[in-house]
């Protein structure tokens, strides 16, 4: 999910930078705005906001995790095997992140439509 959102955001960013060049000509800017103001344009923007929120919050969680925070202590692997680095707190963090992203999507759709 982190990678999918990252690739979506990167593609959006590249297109956004290329699209921004149209500011140099008023007519081209107007034509580009037609694309932005279309339902497809609003959906693309809303998904960008939702995925951006997810990518940012989950990225901060991963930063802490890769720094050694919240991954538990090393234990002997006994049956039934449990992944130490993906405990209840981490799962909860991911679900909360998804919830916040859904709220961001709802807010964005509300603003655009």
């Amino acid at each position, binding site marked *: 999910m982190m*990678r999918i959102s*990252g*690739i979506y*955001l*990167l593609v959006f*960013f*590249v297109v956004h*930078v*290329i699209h*921004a*060049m149209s*500011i*140099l000509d*008023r007519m081209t*800017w*107007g034509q580009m*705005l037609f694309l*932005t*103001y279309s339902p497809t344009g609003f959906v693309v923007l809303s998904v960008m*906001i939702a995925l*951006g929120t997810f990518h*940012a919050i989950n*990225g*901060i969680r991963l*930063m802490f995790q*890769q720094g050694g925070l919240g991954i538990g202590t090393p234990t002997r692997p006994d049956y039934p095997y449990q992944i130490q680095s993906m405990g209840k707190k981490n799962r909860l963090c991911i679900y909360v992140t998804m919830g916040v992203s859904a709220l961001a999507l709802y807010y964005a759709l509300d*603003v*655009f439509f």
Partner: protein
Amino acid sequence: MLRIRESHIRKIHYSTALGAIGLVALHISVRFSTGHFASSLSYEFVVANYQTLSYAILLELILILVSVHGFNGLRGIFLDYRSGFKYEKMVNWGCFLAALSLIVYGTMTIILANQIVI
């Protein structure tokens, strides 16, 4: 470029991420702060944004931070799927040049938009 340690690249990746979160949030909030999204994209308003020095600096910083972070992330994804000296070199240089091209392209827009006379 190939001599940078992977741990240093990781630190650059994290610092660009944190910087980008704050600046992009600011950039998006400016779009929503005008009351109506459509009016924030009017030609005059956007040109005025580009011609405000602080906002132009904000855009340039976002451009650099997101390009570096994004293409470094893409590099990481590519390197996770395959290995090999030639492949790694190709991916490293490809992502570096792509990020550089995008930064140059975006900077050109910011500089040229500064010279628009309405």
